[in-house]
């Protein structure tokens, strides 16, 4: 509700100045909208609710409903973690990139694994030809993880690992390598992505069907709450959903719907909400429409807090805090005029910071075509450092809070997400909504609509459908040599020769038994197998035997 005196004044303005202006020169378009297609009005005015309802809707940073941020001082206290996602070829080469990034001022690590690792296959599996070391580092056994983290102080650096279906195995390897170096598991901090539901929806790196996958997730929650208390047990990811074509509203809705499913699974397994919820984290994309993105982060925070308190009865405020990592939007990068991507990434990173992110990855300008070169990664990291140290936006909490437009968009995104989540609840929950293809279809429709709007030039993408250059200079791209697979296979064979075969067989047998008994937590037998240098393919092989494999629904 707009206060009466402002409404009156607005009417005078609209019949006077506005009418005059539009009669002289009409606006550029009949309809204005955000990048996600939300309608945008000419002018937003203060609403009574923004003052009267301030405490309930916005409140104070560090307090429920956390709209303005999860910490009372936000970046005045501590900057976000600058965490560049990286990994390629073998463990040694990726290790060199991590040390370079830390030397350049990165404050956390983020490991990219190759596709064979992500779907639980060893590098010597014939299905992996052409893929080993390509989109991330190849990991087969503990031996690789030892080399990956050589010289990196695991008690000081936090490590995020983009690993989902085999998350339990990589977490076990991380714990194992730390303990071999004398770092106790309770000292470790980091994150595993561990979000399998969005693999079915958008990313495709699934192995097992939903039910056993959810059991593994819940086993990890239980194990870490006892043994690795500082570990973030999941990073519930909207990023890939957005990359697949979802709108900002869908990104929030489907991510929170997935969160609900994980929480319900853990509750059903007998955990209490405040025992595991404080370690849940999130991961969102940041696109270029600045206000829409900032509003999205704020809406997600408020909505999650309300769900946790009202739907799940959380009592610990930390259970209600939506902590999140952000990555700038890969799909927004263009292969044409790649230097422009630096500007896009700047706007996107700014949106993440204005939205109160806890950690941030900035994409490099060359990533529309390949993994980034070291030079491109450095510019991406510098972009974060410039925002942190030169822009001034870190000096106050939630700097855009109170913008009439931003608050309106925040409400609108929250309402849109609530509608979707209600629909998913009506379908019987997110697993059902995935199995019947509902969520995938919704995303695909958004992706198609977006594509058409670019094709029809209703939306301008600079350098692609407008402002094109005739000659595109060829840029130097990073390349992973094909020999990586041969080297990795050789290393795996040498580990297989060196290890105690009987210990491996025994550990895998114990894992099989545990997998067959839903009441047994899978983490201890996985740790044992990892210590015996069982490979990811062998461990996942046992789990595949017991759990079966997920088959994508034909659409």
């Amino acid at each position: 509700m707009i206060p009466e005196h402002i409404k009156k004044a607005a009417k005078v303005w609209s019949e006077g100045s506005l009418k005059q202006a539009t009669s002289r020169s009409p606006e550029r378009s009949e309809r204005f909208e955000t990048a996600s297609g939300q309608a945008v009005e000419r002018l937003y005015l203060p609403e009574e609710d923004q003052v009267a309802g301030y405490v309930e809707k916005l409140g104070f940073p560090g307090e429920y409903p956390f709209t303005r941020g999860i910490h009372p001082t936000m970046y005045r206290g501590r900057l976000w973690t600058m965490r560049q996602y990286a990994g390629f070829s073998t463990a040694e080469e990726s290790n060199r990139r991590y040390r370079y990034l830390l030397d350049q001022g990165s404050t956390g690590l983020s490991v990219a694994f190759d596709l064979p690792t992500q779907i639980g296959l060893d590098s010597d599996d014939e299905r992996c030809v052409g893929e080993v070391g390509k989109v991330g580092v190849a990991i087969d056994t503990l031996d690789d993880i030892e080399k990956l983290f050589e010289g990196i102080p695991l008690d000081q650096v936090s490590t995020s690992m983009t690993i989902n279906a085999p998350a339990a195995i990589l977490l076990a390897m991380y714990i194992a390598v730390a303990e071999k170096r004398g770092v106790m598991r309770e000292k470790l901090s980091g994150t595993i992505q561990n979000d399998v539901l969005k693999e079915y929806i958008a990313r495709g790196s699934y192995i097992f069907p939903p039910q056993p996958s959810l059991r593994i997730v819940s086993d990890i929650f239980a194990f870490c709450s006892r043994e690795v208390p500082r570990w973030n047990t999941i990073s519930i990811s909207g990023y890939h959903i957005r990359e697949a074509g979802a709108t900002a509203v869908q990104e929030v809705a489907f991510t929170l719907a997935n969160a609900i499913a994980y929480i319900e699974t853990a509750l059903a397994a007998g955990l209490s909400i405040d025992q595991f919820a404080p370690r849940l984290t999130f991961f969102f994309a940041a696109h270029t429409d600045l206000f829409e993105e900032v509003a999205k982060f704020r809406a997600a925070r408020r909505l999650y807090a309300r769900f946790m308190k009202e739907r799940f009865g959380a009592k610990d405020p930390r259970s209600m805090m939506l902590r999140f990592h952000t990555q700038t939007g890969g799909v927004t990068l263009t292969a044409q005029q790649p230097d422009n991507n630096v500007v896009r990434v700047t706007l996107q990173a700014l949106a993440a910071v204005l939205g109160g992110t806890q950690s941030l990855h900035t994409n490099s300008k060359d990533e529309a075509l390949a993994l980034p070169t070291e030079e491109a990664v450095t510019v991406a990291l510098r972009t974060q450092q410039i925002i942190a140290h030169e822009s001034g936006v870190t000096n106050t909490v939630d700097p855009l809070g109170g913008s009439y437009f931003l608050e309106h968009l925040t409400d609108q995104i929250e309402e849109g997400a609530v509608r979707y989540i209600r629909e998913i609840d009506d379908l019987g929950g997110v697993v059902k909504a995935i199995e019947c293809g509902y969520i995938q279809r919704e995303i695909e429709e958004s992706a198609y609509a977006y594509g058409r709007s670019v094709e029809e030039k209703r939306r301008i993408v600079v350098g692609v459908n407008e402002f094109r250059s005739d000659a595109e200079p060829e840029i130097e791209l990073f390349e992973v040599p094909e020999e990586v697979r041969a080297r990795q296979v050789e290393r795996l064979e040498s580990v297989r020769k060196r290890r105690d075969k009987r210990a491996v067989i025994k550990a895998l047998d114990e894992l099989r038994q545990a997998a067959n008994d839903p009441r047994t937590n899978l983490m201890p037998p996985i740790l044992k197998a990892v210590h015996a240098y069982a490979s990811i393919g062998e461990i996942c092989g046992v789990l595949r035997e017991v759990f079966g494999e997920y088959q994508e629904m034909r659409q």
Partner: protein
Amino acid sequence: MPKGRILIAKPGLDGHDRGAKYVAHLLRDAGYEVIYTGIRRSPEEIVSAAIQEDVQLIGLSLLSGAHNFLFERVLSLLAQQGADDIMVIGGGTIPAKDVPRLQSLGVRAIFTPGTSADSILRTVSRLLEERSPGDGGGRDVTT
């Protein structure tokens, strides 16, 4: 009467299929019969689907960097099975320097990021028209 039958396929382990689904949708809207394999198909599965479904054209989509191996494998399996009258085109994050080699292997067209829908439709339509008996076919790169 459909204009032609096309298989859109995702070879290898890559799960990113926004592009594949987009192109499938685009071609369907343009009047083609389109079968989409879904993600993570082996070259063997793709070739056998193409033969079974009696398509004239396979569109391979890949973003993982494994195109050099996987595209070549699809082409050689087609040849082995006497089905090299089925044309192959491809798209995804494919660096410009890999394009000439893929073309020389027999990939008819490569669509890299930023390619317009119009240019994809034009190329597909031309390839299918050229596919008359005795015609060697043309090759095209569009960026």
